[in-house]
């Protein structure tokens, strides 16, 4: 059973053209609630949500009639949280988060709620949830407190070398691939709306394991999908940690999801 509540404070996006990003409740709000009056503390997804909103603002500056915006929805399967729906919605308002819809479902139905809402990217702090969603063909990313935790004017998206699913046999893989490709293509289109300088979106490719040829072929594959990468780093086996702390990505995209290596 999936129920959706619209946030009347936020202008609803054109679902056909928007890039729907679903965020799990636990990623947005800290597990332990404060008291009933103060609501919830903000979780690791906050910087990302704020910067997605900034991108929307810039997109609308470029074109006030723009429909290809990020549409942020909140998903929760926790029945206790669902009882607190009023409090959740209030907290969202209070922190100025532009969440357009709240989706409540049972745990076994959460994939259904992703599908129903045409979700193109699912963000969570729960590895199992991310795995499940990916397996069902919804591109997912695992959020981690190591990711950019300070406010930023620019959405920094990091692609890892396996960001593009290579063709495997099987229909699940095919639909997985096409969902991911369509999401990447949309990201690419959004990036194209801005110039090289002063862009609120920046794409970075990091290849850790393969050599320059693997980096080369990923650059080409991304380009074929319409994703022009701004920065590229081929680490050739060097430890990833120092680079990630320099690059400060908000979002790490790879085949499925990625854990940060410290």
């Amino acid at each position: 059973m999936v129920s959706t509540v619209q946030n009347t404070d936020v202008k609803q996006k054109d679902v056909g053209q928007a890039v729907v990003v679903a965020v799990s409740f636990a990623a947005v709000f800290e597990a332990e609630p404060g008291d009933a009056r103060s609501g919830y503390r903000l979780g690791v997804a906050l910087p990302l949500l704020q910067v997605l909103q900034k991108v929307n603002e810039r997109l609308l500056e470029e074109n006030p009639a723009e429909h290809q915006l990020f549409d942020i929805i909140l998903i929760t399967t926790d029945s206790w949280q669902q009882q607190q729906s009023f409090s959740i919605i209030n907290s969202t308002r209070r922190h100025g988060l532009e969440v357009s819809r709240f989706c409540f479902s049972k745990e076994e139905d959460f994939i259904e709620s992703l599908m129903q809402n045409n979700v193109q990217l699912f963000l969570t702090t729960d590895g199992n949830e991310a795995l499940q969603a990916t397996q069902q063909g919804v591109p997912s990313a695992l959020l981690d407190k190591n990711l950019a935790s300070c406010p930023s004017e620019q959405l920094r998206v990091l692609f890892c070398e396996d960001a593009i699913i290579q063709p495997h046999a099987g229909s699940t893989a095919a639909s997985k691939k096409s969902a991911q490709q369509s999401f990447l293509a949309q990201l690419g289109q959004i990036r194209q709306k801005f110039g090289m300088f002063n862009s609120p979106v920046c794409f970075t490719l990091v290849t850790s394991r393969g050599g320059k040829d693997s980096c080369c072929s990923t650059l080409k594959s991304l380009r074929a999908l319409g994703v022009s990468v701004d920065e590229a780093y081929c680490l050739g086996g060097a430890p990833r940690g120092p680079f990630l702390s320099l690059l400060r990505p908000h979002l790490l995209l790879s085949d499925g999801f990625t854990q940060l290596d410290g």
Partner: protein
Amino acid sequence: MNLNSSQTLTISGQDVVKNGSQHSWEDAKTILKPSTPSKKPPKPENSITIAVSSRVLFNMEKEQQIFEQQGMEEYIKYQVAHETEPFSPGPAFSFVKALEAVNTQLRDLYTESEELFDVVLITNNHAYVGLRLINTINHHQLFIERFCMTGGNSPIGYLKAYNTNLYLSSDPVKVHEALEEGIAAATMFTPEKMTEVSETQLRVAFDGDAVLFSDESEQIYKAHGLDKFFEHEKAHENKPLDHGPLKGFLEVLGKLQKKFYAKGQRMDCPIRTYLVTARSAASSGARALKTLRSWGLEIDEALFLAGAPKGPILEKIRPHIFFDDQMFHVEGAAEMGTVACHVPYGIAQRVPEGKGIKDKEISSIK
């Protein structure tokens, strides 16, 4: 060690092969043991990392002009349109090839060791230009498996992340930034014509003051003149000078040299180092040598020029790279075909050099 100034040197034993010609090296490659199958780059903490920018590794003059005259968009368009056309070699190219030659010889002698040179490309270019750079690396068969295309961001953090031992760039601002962060760095210039250099022996030439050594003595000279400088150096002959920004690099070269010595390759070591200084053998030179000795460092040849120009002697030595803190010497070297790099460190950067030719001659004496 050669203590006479300006003497003609004979280069013994090493083949001096035309720069850019692949033939003799290709022949040599078939004679040497084939490279180990798993030729992965070494771990940064084990290797000696040399970071080069795209404009010193390759000749990108034409593209640079387009960027300066027509802006970024046209520059990128041009690069992408010419993506499959490799760039021709830049001033650092022969240096990088020589590093690879040393690596091959090291791998022969120490198959498991990761104490090798690792060349990393660190460029401000956007990844759009990346494919052309990668294609060029492949075309010239360079072993560069690590790179950063920072899309305009400062390279300094990445230099540190790779444990960079030496950074070469055509941009003096970045070089200065790197030096401030304690990374050995130099601005590389392209000579109008590059003399042929060895393809089998790496030769690195260093100026002394404000490069290997600190600029403390140079400060004395600039403030109080030549006589006072000589006096001071004689009086402090046994007090080692403080270290300069490139001391560390000489040190790592020395470490690799010892590995060759251990296998009996002292006379024909694939790495050779030179000190080319305006100090004079008779007086101020002693302190320089004693300082090196106190650091436990060796230099293969020390040339004390007592103020004579460095260009001609470098033209005889044929180093792959020469480091100096004074633009006057860098230019003099480049005029005679040596790939010379400026180390923007110390007092020479703040006190302008003399204007007239006569003044220049005097000011070049350290």
